[in-house]
């Protein structure tokens, strides 16, 4: 008996390569200057899902993401790696959502799936770094959750066994399905795109992309149902618009401070045992480590 797995993923600005123009004058992220990528820990989550699919015959992996139209790209990226289908939650009403409104929207969307055994998502996204969305989704749908997962060791109808990576060690925990799991970056990296899957799914489109005039191989998309990426708006997930977008987001950004690293805070060490040892002593003494 296969598992029905849903992976929550997010398209994020690539904050790992931040240049001078990364922030706008008003303190918000200049999304135009940063490449949009698959949130790295969501890729770790996808890999865990695909491993379950490989291990338990008949399992399926669906990707659920919320974002603007271009977020369809990460759904295609997931299909290229072995996901079965994808759902893009997109609507103007979602714009400006904080973690509370986002998790509300995602939890409404989850209810659209007939039966889900496991939800897997990355621990946190590299744009906000809150690590709130996964746990909040679990709360809203009334599911238990296991956070900081490094590996899902077992997942059957009886139980799910997960190895957690914590600050000071590892922990192996068990739970019952259904379960929401958030995955750390210490989990195995996601597999590469598969050549045949890329060729199979490269023409996959959302209805908005079709309407926006992307007519390439449109006959093929009409002919092959798997090339249609599902798109859901507020109406399709039966959500209350008051809980969405800016209206549903209590988080307000008061101020953004630009932290500049000062050279005087740095210290030069020679690459020898003496310097390394004294640094270690210093770090232990001031409780940075140990």
């Amino acid at each position: 008996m296969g598992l029905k797995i849903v992976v929550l993923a997010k398209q994020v600005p690539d904050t790992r390569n931040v240049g001078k123009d990364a922030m706008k004058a008003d303190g918000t992220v200049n999304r135009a200057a940063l490449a949009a990528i698959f949130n790295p820990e969501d890729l770790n989550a996808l890999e865990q899902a695909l491993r379950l699919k490989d291990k338990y015959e008949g399992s399926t992996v669906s990707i659920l993401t919320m974002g603007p139209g271009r977020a369809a790209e990460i759904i295609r990226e997931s299909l290229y790696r072995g996901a079965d289908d994808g759902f893009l939650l997109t609507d103007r009403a979602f714009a400006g959502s904080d973690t509370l409104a986002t998790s509300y929207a995602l939890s409404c969307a989850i209810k659209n799936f007939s039966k889900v055994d496991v939800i897997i998502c990355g621990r946190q996204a590299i744009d906000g770094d809150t690590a709130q969305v996964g746990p909040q989704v679990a709360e809203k749908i009334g599911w238990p959750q296991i956070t900081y997962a490094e590996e899902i060791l077992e997942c059957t109808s009886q139980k799910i066994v997960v190895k957690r990576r914590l600050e000071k060690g590892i922990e192996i925990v068990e739970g019952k399905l259904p379960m929401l799991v958030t995955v750390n970056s210490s989990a195995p990296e996601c597999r590469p795109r598969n050549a045949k899957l890329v060729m199979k799914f490269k023409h996959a489109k959302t209805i908005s992309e079709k309407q926006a005039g992307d007519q390439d191989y449109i006959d093929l998309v009409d002919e092959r149902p798997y090339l249609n990426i599902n798109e859901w708006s507020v109406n399709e997930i039966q959500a209350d618009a008051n809980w969405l977008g800016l209206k549903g987001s209590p988080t307000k950004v008061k101020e953004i401070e630009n932290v500049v690293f000062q050279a005087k805070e740095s210290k030069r060490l020679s690459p020898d045992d003496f310097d390394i040892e004294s640094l270690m002593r210093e770090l232990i003494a001031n409780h940075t480590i140990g």
Partner: protein
Amino acid sequence: MANFYTDNPGLKFQLSHPLMKKIVTLKENNFADKDTYDYAPRDFEDAIDSYDKVMEIIGEIAGDVIAPNAEDVDHEGPHVENSRIIYAKGTQENHDALVKAGVYGISLPREFGGLNFCMVPYLMSADIVCRADAGFGNIWGLQDCAETIHEFASKEIKDEFLPRVVNEGATCSMDLTEPDAGSDLQAVMLKATYNEKDGWWYLNGVKRFITNGDAEIKLVLARSEEGTSDGRGLSYFVVDNPKDASLKVRRIENKMGIKGSPTAELVFTNVKAKLVGQRRLGLIKYVMSLMNGARLGIGGQSVGISEAAYREALAYAKDRVQFGKAIIEFPAVYEMLSLMKAKLDASRALLYETTRFVDVYKAYDLVAEKRPLDKDEKEDQKTYNKLADGFTPLLKLMSSEYANQNTYDSIQVHGGSGFMKDYACERLYRDARITSIYEGTSQLQVVAAIRHVTTGAYLAQMRAYLSEKVTPELEGLRTRLSAMADLYEKRITKVVDKKDNEYIDFHARRMVEMAGYIIMGCLLVSDATRNDEFVKSAEVFVNYAEAEVTKNASFIKSLNHKNIGLYKQL
């Protein structure tokens, strides 16, 4: 987060060559697979887009997995444990990543699970992978053996072995050389005996210098005809490596370079084998075909190494400050770098031109399996076959020599630091050294190429290139190349007219190289016509080629043919 395909626009440029349409249309048999396989292309643009996307996957694995592993693989190397080869950790990781990406079997037909790509993207993958790690490039490149099985073996053998290459990532080896049979493969002694009772062939003997010797699937050249002593007594066999005492790895060589690629000595004791194709055609047909593919592969490997060497040198020269400025600002350094780049671009131009020729004639073979070719098609196939025969040894010769020169210069740019193990150029230098030796030394490439000098085939192709349209700013270069072609013609006429084979052999390398310089110059001018990015390399290369052609011409002119005895050493 490196991608060795997308960071190198010269690669995608090759996918846009005008001849690609003809190649892809033939190879895809007018896109007949499009309704049978969900990953088959609908049309030409769709096919090129698929090539592009799959090269991007390989580029990412090369940049993110293979290149970062290269140094450790070079230090660790493979080892032998209980007569079996264990790869270095990184080698195994590289291989597993490519298997997961589903790119093994890149050129095999879809009915065996392959991607059915033509040779251009296949060689491009070698170019990309070898830039990351030339040694690993051999393990990747040995899937050529699957191509040989596909071309010559029975359906039963194809069905048994080919899907394993694709699905399990079964690696291959071609077991040709023996202690007393290196360049001269006619001397192969490993014995193949047919057993009437069980219908198997049994192999007994020793093979040496076998790349990836403990591969799952082995193609073995063996003497099937008792009492024979030349190439006509040899047949080709496929072995499903039993991984037991019957096929032992006696040792692996401690090599100068490409250390990640295991080179083994093997002992066969009653190893079960199946015959590929017909008896007696092992060397004279099948190995010759495999060898041409392998030489093309070394071309790809050489270009990949040149690319890596150039990039390392460029980055260092920009970074290193001496006498108050970056060393790239000194003429002695920037000239060296621009010549490295020109040799790199010229090698790459020749690599893909040769590959396109191979592609056309091989694609016709595939068409011929489905329907008889008409007269024009047969004629066309013959033309491209001849061009491929002429260009393959030229490519192997020139690109491998340039890989050596570029890695030498890369170390030179690094100065004393380049002599240390801390910089990648040191490994590249060692890795490059084999390229002008294996799959036929440079001297043997000259032997294969000289015929195309004496018959005028190279000259005809030069003239054909020189009659193509170029942009006005490239007219000057074309005129100079044309004068070089005239000089080349004059000198070969002088040599050939003497009707003395030893004299021709004596000057063979000089003449073949002259042809190489001129043809590569023509190809760069052609690339520059389609893309401004190549104008600089075209100019630099033609300057260099002109000097080299003149040098060789001068030597041929001034040496009296009766005086070649002077060069004989006792």
